[in-house]
């Protein structure tokens, strides 16, 4: 196996443009898979020296741009200046365990696109935009289009996630992230991210292989019933070792209700 640690994005992308090449960001998923014999990359392209991928900075339009190599620990400490930042911080805080949060990255997590992960749901609710970069250029993809399926995204072989852009949040909106798991620190059985401003954006994870927006919710009404009706239109959720299809279907509306309720409570004038 080869290992390279380029200093520029362009070099990294060029190195990735070969069979068997794999990005190494925080390593919290990849190295675990390598240790279990589930991944055998021919070449690892470490992103740790690329300063361009780091840093959190406000954008001119009042949003936030978060570098792909930002760790979960750094995100957990994001100042709650906006509902989007609050939501992302809440999600970051419940990823795995402290030691994993110190190394795992936003970019690594979303590039992996595990259906049971925490960020994808939050980013879809936030309506974030994923900045992708390759040796030849850049492109921006809305979060809701970035995730295609289980461990599947729109990333091409030689593209990496450069940053995540969060739009300016509605004034005074409230945000909440609800995660249901068997034990603390585990992957989610289901997770729901909600931002409640003048309108309500709610995304659910674990209900399909990608995060889903739950439309048509009116917080003034019976959110649980509304969510049940909306979700009933969708294909049945997956069944796995953690929970069956039936359990996810029964519990999802309540989780949506809790997230919406919490987001509504978190609003201020």
């Amino acid at each position: 196996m080869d290992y390279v640690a380029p200093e520029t994005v362009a070099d990294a992308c060029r190195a990735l443009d070969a069979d068997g090449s794999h990005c190494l960001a925080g390593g919290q998923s990849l190295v675990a898979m390598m240790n279990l014999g589930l991944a055998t990359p021919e070449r690892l392209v470490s992103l740790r020296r690329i300063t361009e991928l780091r840093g959190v900075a406000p954008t001119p339009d009042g949003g936030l741009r978060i570098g792909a190599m930002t760790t979960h620990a750094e995100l957990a400490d994001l100042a709650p200046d906006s509902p989007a930042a609050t939501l992302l911080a809440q999600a970051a805080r419940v990823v795995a365990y402290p030691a994993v949060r110190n190394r795992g990255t936003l970019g690594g997590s979303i590039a992996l696109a595990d259906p049971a992960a925490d960020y994808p749901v939050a980013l879809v609710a936030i309506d974030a935009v994923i900045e992708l970069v390759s040796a030849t250029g850049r492109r921006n993809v809305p979060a809701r289009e970035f995730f295609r399926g289980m461990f599947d995204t729109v990333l091409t072989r030689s593209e990496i996630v450069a940053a995540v852009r969060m739009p300016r949040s509605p004034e005074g909106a409230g945000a909440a992230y609800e995660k249901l798991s068997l034990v603390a620190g585990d992957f989610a059985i289901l997770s729901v991210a909600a931002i409640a401003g003048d309108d309500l954006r709610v995304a659910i994870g674990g209900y399909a292989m990608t995060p889903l927006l739950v439309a048509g919710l009116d917080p003034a009404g019976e959110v649980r019933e509304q969510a049940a009706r909306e979700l009933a239109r969708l294909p049945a959720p997956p069944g796995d070792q953690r929970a069956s299809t039936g359990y996810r279907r029964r519990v999802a509306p309540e989780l949506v209700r809790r997230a919406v309720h919490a987001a509504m409570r978190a609003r201020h004038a």
Partner: protein
Amino acid sequence: MRDPDTAARRSPPRLDAADKATGRARYADDIRLPGMLHAAIHTSQQAHARIVACRTDAALALPGVHAIVTGADIAGTRWGGIVKDETMLARDKVRYVGEPIAAVAAIDAATAIRAAAAIEVDYEPLRCVLSPDAALARDAPLVHEGFAAYVKTVDGGGHGNIVFETDVAEGDVDHAFAQCDAIVEGTFETQAQHHVYLETNGCVADVDASGRITLYASCQSVHHAQQRVAEELGEPMARIRVIATRVGGAFGGKHASNLHSIAAWLARAARRPVKLVLSRMQDFEVQRSRHPARIWMKTGARRDGTILARDVRVTLDGGAYADESPAVLAFALLMSRGPYRIPNVRAHGAVVYTNKLRAGSFRGFGNPQATFAGESQIDDLAASLGIDSCELRLRNAMRAGDTAFGGQPVASCIVGDALMRVRDAQRAASPLSPREGTQRGIGFAVMSHISGLMGTSATVQLRTDGSIALATGCVDIGQGADTVMVQMCAELLGVPIERVSYAQQDSDVSPYNWKTAGSRSTYMTGRAVSVATIEMRQRMIDQAAQMMECAAADLELVPGGAVGLVGIPKRVSFKDIALHSLFRSGGPIAATHGFVFDGPGFDPKRASIHRLAFANLGVYTFGAHCVEVDVDTATGAVAVRRAWCAHDVGHAINPVSCEGQIQGGFVQGMGYALTEALHWNDDGWLTTTTLADYKIPGALDVPPDIHAIVLEDPEPSHPLGAKGIGEPSLVGAAPAIANAIRAATGVRLTTLPMTPERVLDALETR
């Protein structure tokens, strides 16, 4: 009243704590020997299949491979606790996915793994059976066609896929049920739990120029491991030496294993040391689990709450090899009456072979399964009678002087006190504020266990400087046995514990001990230590009498390490005594004591016992739990908010260690109750093979307050009154939680683990 300053009353820090805290403690994987090779195992990819061919050429051809062993190389000696059905490696067929077929020793771990993967096995798949129901179906394939020819040290009547059947009965159950005003009946199902010791199974086998093996093993008994390795290698035990490493947890999953023999075989073949440490995945797949069980139980009482009868049928899923199954079955049946004075009890059980990982010894040993059923049913019986469940328990609780199920007299029993202690502690505690969306319930369970079993011994010697050398064969698996042995010896000699050294367990020199299991170490080996120490103390006094030219009866032990005249300030130190014995007269002063458990035994006039795998056991211990849970009625999630666990330990040699065992056992029981389960797919592959799939409780999943209440009702047959505590607290956790869920929501869950999904299912159908 004991002097609180004596060594045994205090809880000195454990002897090994400093090394463990600083990373110096040496576990099997920390051992490095010059020229050491690494071993890897090739395991079965089929749940049930004939091995048609096994080719090792490709593996042997890899550079750095030093030795390979397959089933064809071994004599095929069969090993087993009671039914000897297992060979060191699979020979003609494989019986579970993960069964070792071959093993390789190579220059490094990566090469060994590659070589093991390069071994080619051709299988002729056979139909597999993955549950007792499937295994007992009319045309089920036989897991062990040659079963009839296997050696069995106890006749268990096994046939077909039935390994062993046992019956224990007292009184006339059918007649008694006819007198009952209330009868409850139910079937309970429990799962395969895995030990998940933090340190996986491993060992290092060294070999000398003559081929004699020294095995450094993470194990529960050097003598037991030595016996197995000797048998499987076809060597006399004198040619096999086993030394216990520091053990990173065992819980029943690390007694004699074919892994030890495999490492030893490879070392002998390669003429170099060989390290074999299982990965976490392999440890899940290869070794042992707890027996899944189906328990049908029926209990009846009179209107006034007197329980008259209980009928029990237990089916244990034994997996592919018998291992300790007959004994687990025996204990499950013996514990199925619970700590109650029920005069009419009938218990029948069977262990069945299936094509899964062997089920074997695991903290509780059949008792968790039986008590989950029994203590759940007691609550249901109480509800049906309209009596408070604690009240029902207290009315029927055993008392000192009663007999256990099987007829053994029970000299000390404070189960009623234990229950009242936890009930009162919960009532006295400030109420916890309710959590939105949850319903709160309080649940109780009582439990009984044993600590007297099999054989053990201890030796103690006086050193030249008057300090003491203590040795036993009892391996400390993390529960603190080393420290309590030293404490007992030190207390009986009136010296600080620093004056007593404790030898590492080494089969070349350590006096025999069966194994660390059955909560038996403090009682059994501790009793041997105590008696040996008392004997040596007497010899020292006799020596001092000679030195001081007086009668031994005029002398007493002086705290601090001396012997003196009663009432007169004239004494000789232990050092004086030692020097006199070594250089003047008498000879070196030492003592040894060994015994096999000598309790009263089962009473054939009282109990009808048919095919029980135990000859004798006893020294009953008792405990009670009270738990508070919050049930999230929309998700089914159960949170244990607080727990009180009261356990009788006879006499707490190290109270802090007792508390640690109680708390740890309770949490392992919480995992059993709520989240842990091994899963197999339809082809017999274990799908829970990592800690990401198999979830044990973490710090945020356990209540901050698990109150361990250490009760002391001294055991007369132990010089210091001590009994065991290793297992009981796990036993009562699941039923206490199940009862609390029922109290909170009205639903009775009868299947473990009580996952959120199962709880929600029950809530929605109530």
